[in-house]
């Protein structure tokens, strides 16, 4: 038995005390929970008939379709263990009833498949020849049952399911799961399978909002029953858009979206500003005077604009600045922004790294992802050394050249003056020549060194920064949710 405890959460929010109908429901729920608990225990002990009966009783107390599935599962396992066609038939009947009660069941296909397999197995078992006559006995309790067919084996062992039930009084309240911005989850009453920790929000026009943190176990029955009190001083807005899932901002955009379309909620009477926007569409804005106790519908018609998304990611991108067409798009990465379709120059810069720049064509309804790998900026010390050497050689060349020119000038003057005239062996001719040659050599070396320095300055040293580009389509796809249907945008590739 361990910790198999049935939880019943009774949410008596209303301070006015229990009402008779509500008390009746509570009793039925207790009875259903008791039956569910006993049935689950029997199932685990292999007492499939008792288990099935327990789930039937639970269903009788509270007609949750999941109970019917568990009835089918109990009989399914009984038939499998004993190759009992009658048990299989009961399982098929229970499964069918389950699908009838919950035509939108998420496991409908799986259940239908199981029905087909079990019906074939029933037919196979009924068509099988009777036991041999020489056994001497009409029935041998110790006889080994026929093995299930391969198809039945492939279905595996079925397990009974837990159930999470959310109810409210009054019913038909909107359920939000975790975050209102995700949109409406369902309306009360709702039952289904949940797993993990969640925050449940239950809201109905003219009633206070119920908010409850839950921890769901898929093997247990969990019932959340909310009794909501009336609030007559609030107004009620019903916000919808032609594009479901659009973000809704009320009065102050800086606090973030309060939810997504469609959304209905209480709101204080008075003037309010509503913004509704989503990627790929122009923003919708409307100012409305909300009146207490009245329904104020807001129907936003979002007009699409040709935009695509640019998604810049990569290692170290958090320290990089992303600019598009010379304007900073994101102070730091990663950067996911919408851009008008067309050609854009994307530049990613990071201190100490080579910049990455690339012209990209952003297409409408696509996401262009660029995964950046920035390479460190190499040291230019070699260029600096080369510049210094070039300057040194150049300076040396100038000094030598000036000295050579001085000899040239002196000799010219003395030759012209004639007293005393320099002779052809005057050492200044040789010195001047040597200085001139040395100056030219220094100039040549300086020139070569300077060219080298310029080359070192502008050469691509080390690996360049790179970007891996991936373009994905942002397709509009049908979306159906509790209380709405429309087109949603998703990414596929």
């Amino acid at each position: 038995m361990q910790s198999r405890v049935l939880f019943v959460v009774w949410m008596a929010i209303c301070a006015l005390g229990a009402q008779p109908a509500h008390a009746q429901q509570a009793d039925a729920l207790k009875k259903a929970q008791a039956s569910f608990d006993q049935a689950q225990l029997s199932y685990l002990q292999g007492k499939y008939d008792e288990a099935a009966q327990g789930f039937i009783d639970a269903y009788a107390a509270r007609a949750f379709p999941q109970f019917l599935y568990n009835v089918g599962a109990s009989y399914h396992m009984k038939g499998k263990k004993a190759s009992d066609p009658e048990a299989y038939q009961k399982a098929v009947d229970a499964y069918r009833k389950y699908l009838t009660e919950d035509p939108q069941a998420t496991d409908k296909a799986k259940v239908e498949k199981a029905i087909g397999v079990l019906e074939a197995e029933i037919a196979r078992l009924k068509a099988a020849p009777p036991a041999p006559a020489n056994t001497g006995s009409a029935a041998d309790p110790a006889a080994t049952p026929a093995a299930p067919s391969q198809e039945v084996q492939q279905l595996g062992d079925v397990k009974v399911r837990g159930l999470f039930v959310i109810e409210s009084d009054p019913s038909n309240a909107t359920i939000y799961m975790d975050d209102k911005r995700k949109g409406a989850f369902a309306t009360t009453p709702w039952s289904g399978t949940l797993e993990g920790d969640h925050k449940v929000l239950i809201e109905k026009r003219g009633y206070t909002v119920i908010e409850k943190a839950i921890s769901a176990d898929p093997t247990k029955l969990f019932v959340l029953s909310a009794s909501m009190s009336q609030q007559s001083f609030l107004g009620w807005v019903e916000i919808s858009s032609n594009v479901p899932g659009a973000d809704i901002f009320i009065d102050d955009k800086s606090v973030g979206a309060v939810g997504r379309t469609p959304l209905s909620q209480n709101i204080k009477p008075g003037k309010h500003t509503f913004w509704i926007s989503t990627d790929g569409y122009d923003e919708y804005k409307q100012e409305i005077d909300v009146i207490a106790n009245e329904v104020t519908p807001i129907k936003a018609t979002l007009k699409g604009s040709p935009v695509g998304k640019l998604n810049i990611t990569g290692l170290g991108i958090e320290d990089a600045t992303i600019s598009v067409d010379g304007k900073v798009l994101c102070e730091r990465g990663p950067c996911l922004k919408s851009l008008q379709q067309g050609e854009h120059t994307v530049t990613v810069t990071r201190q100490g790294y080579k910049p990455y720049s690339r012209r990209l064509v952003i297409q409408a309804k696509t996401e262009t992802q660029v995964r950046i790998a920035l390479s460190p900026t190499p040291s230019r010390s070699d260029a600096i050394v080369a510049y210094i050497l070039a300057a040194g050689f150049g300076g040396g060349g100038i000094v030598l050249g000036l000295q050579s020119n001085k000899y040239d000038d002196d000799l010219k003057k003395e030759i012209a003056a004639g007293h005393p005239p320099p002779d052809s062996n005057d050492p200044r001719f040789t010195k001047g020549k040597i200085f001139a040659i040395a100056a030219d050599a220094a100039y040549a070396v300086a020139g070569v060194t300077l060219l080298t320095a310029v080359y070192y300055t502008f050469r691509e040293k080390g690996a360049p920064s790179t970007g891996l580009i991936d373009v994905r389509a942002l397709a509009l796809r049908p979306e159906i949710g509790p209380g709405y249907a429309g087109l949603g945008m998703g990414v596929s590739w």
Partner: protein
Amino acid sequence: MRATTTAMTVLLALGACNWTKFDDLADGTWANATSKPNVKSSEWGVAIQRGANAADSANAGTLAIIGAGNTNTFSELTYDEGGASHFAPNTIDLSALGVKTIEDPAFFLASPTSSEVALVNEGDAASIVVASGKDTLDILQLFVGNTSLHNTANIVAKPTAATYMRAKEFPTLPGSNANPAPLVAVGTFVLGTIPNLSGNAQPACRLSDGTNAIDIQALGAVAAGATDDVLAWSKDGRLFRYPGDVFNGCDAAATPTAPTATAATKPAFNPGRGSQILTIDATQILLVGQDDDAGGKPGFLQVFTSNTLAPVGNPVTIAGLHSAALLDVGATKYVVAGYPTALVGSTQAGQVLIFKLAASGLDTTQVASLNDAQPEDNQTFGRAVTVMPYRGKNVIAVAAANEIFVYFRAMLEDGTALYDETRQGK
């Protein structure tokens, strides 16, 4: 990148130095300096003399050079019409020809009538060697000493003076004076170098002041009709003129007699070895006095009349005079005097001073000076000077330590030309 490269190329081209301009400049200098070529002498250029005379120098010039030191050599430099020097392949090893240590200054003479030059120096085996010739040298050894010559006079081997002269015909040898020949002085004797006479047969004679033989320190010759008279400058400073037949009466087997001077004077300078008597023209001579052995190395330059030996003008007494030559540039004559120990600035590099000659004598202030434009200590610039005929003109040649300078163009200190460019195409 391309623009940067182009800009740098232009800058380099602008900044580049044309080193060949120094070759052009060196080619355009007024003076050609030739360093010692491949000759064995460690002291090349202790004496220089014009090689070819004017008649043989219509298109070029030749300089005869004596080298001393470890090996005595005779070599020649020829200067082409562009002024470039060429080392002639006729170097003669004088040491192999019996020439002993060459004294400084050497007696290196030029014939007044031909391209012949003559070196007079002490020789081996108690002799005086007279090496003379054109391009090549003939050796005449004058054997001296107690048994030498006919007169048995005790003559030492070191000559004290020499000059070219055309003596009067030797009595026993008709035609002996066809060409001028060196006259050699050794103390109180003068020795002949008469062609066709052997060294032992050459005449020797004393020159007398009327009473005693004079101790000769310089010899010169002045024309006296078809032959020359002899000028002698004695060690005690007296100047004499003797008739050209100084050997008459001093011929072989005759008792040497002393010819009597026709004129005498007493210049204010006692000449040392190497002093010179230069003939300016038919009427004037120049005494070039030096005395390296005396304290302060006194120098002396003064013009005298050749007939009466009267002084003309004032002397130049700048110390350190070592050699001199006469420069004739046409209308004017100059004295080119070498002072090899003179200071140039603070450098004892040597200098050549040029003095102007006039009918009134020597201008005692130099009109020009020459020195190495990059003077060096002990360069001995001007230790020998001469005037080289070159392409119909005369140019100054100066010897320094292992270097010969020839000035193809020279300027006076007043900015006028001493002589204009003599080279072709310059």
